[in-house]
């Protein structure tokens, strides 16, 4: 299980954003996912990382560094149009992953 906390670009030049509350929220998301997995009888390691920009690039890097052989990712995207125009985390992962990617449509 991996969750990447994405920090927004600062609103005020030179004023850094405190990542702590975002990281805490990310940790809760990850814990909930791990719990769901463990309830189904599947032990899950959690990886929490913090980055800027598109989380997809970080996910790809984690897969490369740790030698994962499969990425399971949600296709989420608010609408088909927005998805086509903006591209998504899923898009970046599907195009750059070092391993096969299983895309699940919620």
């Amino acid at each position, binding site marked *: 299980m991996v969750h990447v906390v994405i920090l927004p670009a600062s609103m005020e030049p030179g004023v850094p954003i405190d990542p702590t509350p975002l990281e805490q929220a990310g940790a809760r998301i990850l814990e909930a996912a791990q719990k769901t997995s463990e309830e189904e009888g599947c032990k899950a390691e959690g990886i929490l990382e913090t980055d800027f920009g598109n989380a997809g690039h970080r996910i790809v890097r984690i897969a490369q560094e740790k030698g994962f052989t499969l990425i399971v990712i949600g*296709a989420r*995207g608010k609408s*088909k149009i927005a*998805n*086509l125009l903006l591209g998504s985390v*899923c898009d970046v992962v*599907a*195009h750059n*992953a*070092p*391993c*096969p*990617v*299983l*895309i*699940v*449509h919620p």
Partner: protein
Amino acid sequence: MFQKGLVPVDGSPYMPGLVAYAIAFAKKAGCSLTFVYVVNMPPTASASDIEKQKAASMKIPEECKGKAAGEGLSASSRIEVGSPAETIVNIAEREKFDLIIIASRGYSRLRRLIVGSVADQVMKLASCPVLVFR
């Protein structure tokens, strides 16, 4: 978890890797595999041209089916005519496939930068899970 897997094949150099992976995956998952080749002809093509192309391409999915069946899997092959991504997504929806296993690259390697490849459209439009083989 999965019962029916749809595997679009295009005869490109990437195909053998995809087929081997799909077979290994299906063995673990215990699902059947259907290999489909989509004949993509311009709208101006005549019926006889389409028939000729279908006959010439039939052996591509058939060979894949043979490989899968040789590994003890329940496998079938088919050929369709139409726009590849749309056709693949429609078959999957209509016939209730619960997984599409597709290669991220095929023949249109360069074109995908501009209009997006078949795999790209399939991952966006499909309503079932899509396993993108890289």
